[in-house]
Every structure is written in structure tokens, then in C-alpha cells.
């Protein structure tokens, strides 16, 4: 295991395409870190530069403080598991896993000890004699993972390792990967476009878009204090709702409706110069409280347009009575989701309200 430092890294391709622009972050020793972003965000270029599969145009990548820019992938001692498995079809599972060890010139007993250990860990012990072609996709992916991990690498890089798996196996695979990371004390960098996967597996996230680092932080920070509207929108499913509002006082926002404005207290004080300005409030669908009657002042009315039952929960599409007739999503329990046409009241408690000035998050430090 190693600490990985990314220091003002750029990647430019021919034709002056900037895939990665001035990205810096540190993955600490033993950390499980996600590089998260939509397609074209530069996350794969980032991964390839860490792996040594691609040149770094500018900036430095360090492993435990040592510059690795000029090192080949094998000199960096990384484990790489890609989405496609690329197993050797003519070799047994055992031989596939043993291959990198034999290439290092390890003795037979040592190879056997390591292969047996990792196979046990990944529940592959029963299929060691089989050929990859006779295995399910999930098994093949685990073999590929075993082959990557058996060398006890400095850093494990996982590129969308479970995104193509059957939904039924995914929850299990997540648990397995997390277990391996914790048990073997790995340093893991996990590249994915799937925010749910990143949130559930990783300790910290580096969120990229258009080649730039949007936010670097723990899952809680990204969730509770998104740095900007992109991060707020990209992380969380269904995505955050946005409603046009006005800053009334440093601690109150209001939503205009045809029957006057409705005021909601906001828990953190913001720069007083925002008072009177048009802002946007963001609300996560899970955190909105919904009731069938107006229980208190701070609630806005709406009509349920659609109900999508999802099992444990149901997603309601509600048209608000604000001036723009904004549509919002609200996640409720799947037990009694009500029906389309219902009149409902939505309540926003102070701590769930996020404030945005166009794309930027307004926080207590933001100066207008």
C-alpha cells in the first residue's frame, strides 16, 4: 500500500484537447477513494496516468512521496482490474491467477500459498481448475480481480469493475470488494460513473467534470455540502430538486406563489448582501417531508402528478403551487404512496435546504 499524490496534473491530447486540467488530490495510505464523473469528465485519463498507461502532460504523480511520472506500469507495482476481464482462455483459473506471480519468478510453494489465499478470499476455491470460458461473467470478473490482487500491489486501481454485472450480484460484489480492501489493507482507487456505487463503497470521492476537479471530500461532505450545482445534481438519485426563491434575511428564504410568498427558515447564516436577491434552493427528494394537510406555516402546496412505485419506496412527481409551477420529486415510503391527483403539502426543514447562486453553492463563507 501507498499514498498516492496527484499534484497539478494536466493531460492534453493532440489537437489541444484538454482531458484533465490542473487536478490535485491525495489518496491516503489504506484509503478507498473514488474518481467519479460522467463520461468525458477525464476520469479514465486520470486513471491511465496513475497506472502509467499514458504520459502526464504536466504536473506530478507521487507514490509515497516518490515521483513516478517516468516509471512504467510494472515499475509502479499496481493492480489493475478493468471492466473487460481479458483472462487467458486456455489457462485454468488457477493458472490465470498464478501468472503474474510466475512472471515475478516466485517459487512453486509461494505461488500456491498466495493463489490459495486470494481464491479463498474471493470464493473462487471451487473453480480453480475450470477454464474461464465456462464461467459466468461475475466469476470471470472475480478471477480478473484475484489476478490483479495476488501480487499485493502498492495501489489497486479498479475501473468500473462491477458496472456490467447483474443487479442481483452487484450488492454482493460491493460487499466483497469492500471486505477485501479492509482485510488486505489495500489502497484502492475506484473509477466509476455510477454515483451510487461510489457513495456506497468509498471513503472519499474526487468528483470530476470537463477535466476539472469539482470537489474532493468524504461521502458526507459531498452529500451535505456539495461544492457547486454540478456536484449537487450528479450525486444522489433521484437528483436534487431546484426551486427559484428569494433570500429574505440571512436566515430565511421565500418561494413566491400566486397567494403570496412562503417563507422557510435556513439553518446557516449567509452573507447579508444576499438579502433581496434571487437564488435557487436545492432539496434532496429523500429529505422532503410530505403531508396531506397543512400542518404548519412553512409548507408549500402541490399536486401529485405521478407515482412510481419502487418497492421499499415510491417516487412522487409533484407540481408545486409556486409561480413557476416547478416539478419536484419526493421519495416516500412504498407502503402508502397515495395516488395521482392528491393534494399534498411539502415541508423543508432548515437543515435540508441548500442554497445556490446560479451554479455556485452559497455557504456561510461565500461572499457575494
Amino acid at each position, binding site marked *: 500500500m501507498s499514498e498516492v499524490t496527484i499534484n497539478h496534473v494536466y493531460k492534453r491530447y493532440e489537437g489541444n484537447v484538454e482531458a484533465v486540467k490542473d487536478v490535485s488530490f491525495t489518496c491516503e495510505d489504506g484509503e478507498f477513494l473514488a474518481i467519479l464523473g460522467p463520461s468525458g469528465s477525464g476520469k479514465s485519463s486520470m486513471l491511465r496516468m496513475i497506472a502509467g498507461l499514458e504520459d502526464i502532460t504536466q504536473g506530478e504523480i507521487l507514490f509515497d512521496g516518490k515521483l513516478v511520472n517516468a516509471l512504467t506500469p510494472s515499475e509502479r507495482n499496481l493492480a489493475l482490474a478493468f471492466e473487460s476481464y481479458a483472462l487467458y482462455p486456455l489457462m485454468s483459473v488457477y493458472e490465470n491467477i498464478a501468472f503474474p506471480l510466475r512472471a515475478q519468478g516466485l517459487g512453486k510453494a509461494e505461488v500456491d500459498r498466495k493463489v490459495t489465499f486470494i481464491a479463498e478470499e474471493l470464493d473462487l476455491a471451487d473453480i480453480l481448475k475450470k477454464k474461464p470460458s465456462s464461467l459466468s461473467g461475475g*466469476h470471470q470478473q472475480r478471477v480478473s480481480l484475484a489476478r490483479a490482487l495476488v501480487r499485493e500491489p502498492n495501489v489497486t486501481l479498479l475501473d468500473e469493475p462491477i458496472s456490467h454485472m447483474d*443487479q442481483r450480484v452487484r450488492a*454482493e460484489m460491493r460487499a466483497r470488494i469492500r*471486505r477485501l480492501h479492509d482485510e488486505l489493507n489495500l489502497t484502492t482507487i475506484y473509477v466509476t460513473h*455510477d454515483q451510487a456505487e461510489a457513495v456506497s463503497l468509498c471513503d472519499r470521492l474526487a468528483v470530476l467534470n470537463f477535466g476539472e476537479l469539482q470537489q474532493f471530500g468524504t461521502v458526507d461532505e459531498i452529500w451535505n455540502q456539495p461544492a457547486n450545482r454540478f456536484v449537487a445534481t450528479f450525486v444522489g438519485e433521484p437528483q436534487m430538486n431546484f426551486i427559484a426563491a428569494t433570500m429574505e434575511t440571512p436566515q430565511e428564504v421565500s418561494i413566491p406563489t400566486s397567494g403570496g410568498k412562503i417563507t422557510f427558515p435556513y439553518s446557516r447564516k449567509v452573507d447579508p448582501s444576499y438579502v433581496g436577491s434571487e437564488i435557487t434552493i436545492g432539496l434532496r427528494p429523500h429529505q422532503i417531508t410530505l403531508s396531506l394537510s397543512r400542518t404548519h406555516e412553512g409548507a408549500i402546496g402541490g399536486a401529485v402528478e405521478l407515482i*412510481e412505485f419502487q*418497492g*421499499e419506496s415510491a*417516487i412522487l412527481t409533484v407540481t408545486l403551487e409556486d409561480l413557476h409551477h416547478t416539478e419536484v420529486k419526493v421519495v416516500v415510503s*412504498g407502503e402508502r404512496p397515495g395516488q395521482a391527483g392528491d393534494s399534498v403539502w411539502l415541508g423543508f426543514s432548515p437543515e435540508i435546504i441548500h442554497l445556490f447562486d446560479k451554479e455556485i453553492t452559497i455557504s456561510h463563507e461565500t461572499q457575494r
Partner: protein
Amino acid sequence: MAQVRLENVSKLYGRKRAVSNVSFGCEEGEFFSIIGPAGAGKTTILKMLAGIEKVTSGTIYLDDRPVNELSPQDRDVAMAFETYNLYPHFSVYDNIAFPLRAPRRHESLSPHQERERVEEIAAFLGITPLLDRRPTQLSGGEKQRVSLARVMVRRPQLYLLDEPIAHLDARLKFSTQTALKRLSGQLGTTIVYVTHDYREALGLSDRVAVLRGGLIEQIGTPEEVYHTPSSDFVARFIGDPPTNLTDGELVTTDGETVFRAGDDFTIQIGEALRQAAEKVAHQEAGRRTLRLGIRSSHIKVSRERISENSFQLPVYAIARNPQGPMCTFELKDSFLQANTEEGLRYDMSERLWLDFNQEHIMFFDKSIEISKR
């Protein structure tokens, strides 16, 4: 709008049975989903409804009229395939408008009406900015929405949709699913919808048929298939994380019945549950074996003992989650996953108390393999 009815419909490819004796009916205007894993026969049923595949035996009725012998053109159905099949030399607009211009059509639209129709559906599916582009300039997700628009622009008696949003990324899938649900409500046309994704089936449908190996495993409302699955297969297929399953035995001592799966895992079961358990229990080497199922949201986890009936297991792994960590426990034959409360933090290998909500325990006969894959 049409009623659809299948009576004992089978399809054989040579000697291979793709669909076996399938019967179901859809009401006028119903959104009916067929869900199942790859190879279950979902698409075959849809193709037989469209008239692209011949029915080997049984009868398909549209509005009580047998249509087995009717050609696809004479059935007045519109089908969307998983693949896009767009005309590369046409703009997106012309691709969508194309079915409206077919000479066979009974209604002919003025150019103005045509534009209205195309623009309406494009707006619904969020592809208005793409109308002037060529298919080659589109991403896979955009192509799929264009291909869906080309089908939904028509006004047939019946829509047949085969995985129409399967290739969209998670975000777009959500919004397109909402658009499709709204559209189906507005059109009021019967829709038969094929998917392997339980979320789509539950979110969109009035009723769902779960297909397994060419046979219907269960038909019911989304709530029914989710809360009262008819088999371990349905329980496992619908929901994420999948329903926890574990095999064990019923042991009765002094009039008390327990379900036991290994030394650590013993739960007492009440009278109502005992009856359900005995219905499915099998005699196996002198033991009464059966399979228990419970969803992760119906398990309580705590550092303290929760009730008489709770038991302890070591944590295998923890997935972090803004709504509270998801704990995984390892059982002898499977993994068990449980949602825990927000704000709590548990450690790997820590022994925690688990308590199952008796009302939500299900018992099944064993019909699938649950070994840890």
C-alpha cells in the same frame, strides 16, 4: 386501444421451448410489463404479439379476435426494439416522422400536424435539441430515445416496447421512465413492456408478469410481486439489494417452533408464520428443510440485544450510504444484507444483534441456487 389475451401460447424453435403455455390478459389501456432474466422468453412473446414470430400453439387475441394468422401490418401495433434501426441518411426529425408518412396509414397528417406530433413527442423524451441531427451524430442513449420517439409518435391500438430504455445511463433512465409513465397516462393506449430491470417494471406498470424459462412464475400488481413474491426466484429477482435468502430447518421442541440455519442463526416463529413454514417445508434426511427470505429493510441491527428473538453475527463488510450504512453478514450459504440507521458506524468483524420483523419473513420451497457466486 386494444385488449390483449394470450391463451396457452407456446413457441418452439426446433425442439427448444422458448415459451411454454403462457396465458395472460391485458385490459384496455393497461401498462403491462413482462420481466425476467435473459433467455426467459420475454422478447419472443412480444414478437408473437407483433406478428413477427409465428405462434407454435395456443391463441393470441386482440379485442377478442384471434390474430395468429394476421400479418404484422394488419395488427395495428407499434413495436420498439432494443436496437435502434434508425435511417442513417435521415435527420432525427425525419426518422421520427417517417412512420407518419407511410402510405398505408389511414390518417394522413398535414405537414403542420406532422410537425406538431413530432415536436410533442420529442419534447416529452427530451430530444428536441437533436431534431436536426443525423443518427451518426448521436450517442447510444440519444439513439435509443429517438427510436422510442419513432414508435410513440404513432397512434396504434397497442404499443410493444422491448427494453426501450435499457441503454440509457442511470440518470437518463429515471427521467425517461417518468416521461414514459406520463405519456402512457395521456395516451391511454395499452402497452406491453419488456424489461429485465425490476425498477422499470414496478415504476411503470399496472401489472407485472415475471417470466422464468419460458413459463410465467407470477402475475400481479407491482405491490404484489414486491411484497408477496410467489417464489424465491421472484423474491430474488425483484428488489435491490435482492431479498436475503437462507436455507435451514424447522425444529419443534416443547410446542415451540424455531427456524434454524446454523448455530448462530435461530429464530422463534409465531403461529401464523409456523403454518406458512410448514406448507413449504420438505422432509430431507429426517429434517424439515425450507428456505427463509427477508428484505434488508425488514432487519433491525443494533449493538444491544433487541428482543428475545434476536441473534448475533459478525459484520462481513459495510457499505456507506447517506441514508445509513448497509451491513453485510456472511452466512454459511449466502450473504445477508441489512439496512441500518443513519448516523451509526459499525466496524468490520464487530458482532451485532439482528432482529427480523416477523411480519415480513417469507418461507419458500427451494427453486433456485443461492450459493455465494
